[in-house]
């Protein structure tokens, strides 16, 4: 820790965004574990845990999308011209690598959610009885294939994310996702003040 006083702190992530991040991380890890342990031979009653956790992930992702579009600076996570012309320059709030990672993992999670919601129809729940004939066999095959490929690709992405979170030169980002702020030195060392004036609005 740096001993920075509240006056020295440059806000980066509001509490609601940090809570979203960590709940999403927990749900994705639970979903991957409940999906792949049975395939690897560890047998347990995984279906109930999996669909309930998937429902939680769906709800928080919907909240995040609404919040990102209406309450946050949506464009701070979209690559801009400077990212293309000089991708190694000091970034704004997010580097081009972070923006591309966010785009990739967003597509994978949305694919897993949409296909997962369709697959939910084949599971008995308190709301309905399963209906395996809701879609044709060929369509179910496409749904299952997309869900499985997205899930396996998420394993790759989680490994990469953990690596960057643990790299010493990225610890200021990991710390900011825990406590919400960075120090002025971290700000001047890592960010272009013309591209991010400091703040947790996005």
């Amino acid at each position, binding site marked *: 820790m740096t001993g920075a006083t509240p006056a020295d702190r440059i806000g980066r992530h509001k509490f609601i965004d940090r809570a979203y991040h960590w709940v999403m991380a927990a749900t994705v890890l639970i979903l991957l574990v409940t999906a792949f342990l049975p395939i690897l031979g560890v047998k347990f009653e995984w279906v109930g845990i999996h669909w309930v956790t998937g429902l939680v992930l769906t709800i928080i992702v919907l909240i995040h999308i609404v919040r990102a579009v209406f309450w946050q600076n949506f464009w701070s996570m979209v690559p801009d011209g400077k990212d293309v012309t000089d991708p190694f320059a000091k970034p704004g709030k997010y*580097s081009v690598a972070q923006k591309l990672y966010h785009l990739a993992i967003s597509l994978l999670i949305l694919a897993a959610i949409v296909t997962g919601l369709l697959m939910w129809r084949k599971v008995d729940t308190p709301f309905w009885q399963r209906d395996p004939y809701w879609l044709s066999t060929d369509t179910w095959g496409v749904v299952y294939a997309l869900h499985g*490929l997205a899930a396996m690709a998420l394993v*790759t992405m989680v490994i990469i994310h953990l690596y960057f979170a643990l790299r010493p030169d990225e610890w200021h980002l990991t710390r900011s996702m825990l406590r919400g702020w960075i120090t002025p030195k971290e700000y001047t060392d890592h960010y272009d003040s013309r591209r991010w004036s400091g703040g947790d609005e996005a």
Partner: protein
Amino acid sequence: MSLFRYASSIYGGGDTLIGANYGLLPWFAFAGVAFVIAHAIFKAVAAPGKPR
């Protein structure tokens, strides 16, 4: 190794797609580990001590 799993249709005809081939899971994990190793080597060799 195929990306997908197929099953023979009980009604005859061609094979039916039933999902992704989970035998590829180790390869997806390996891809993540390979990226980590390649990036760590690049940072150590090409940009030692550079903060970003």
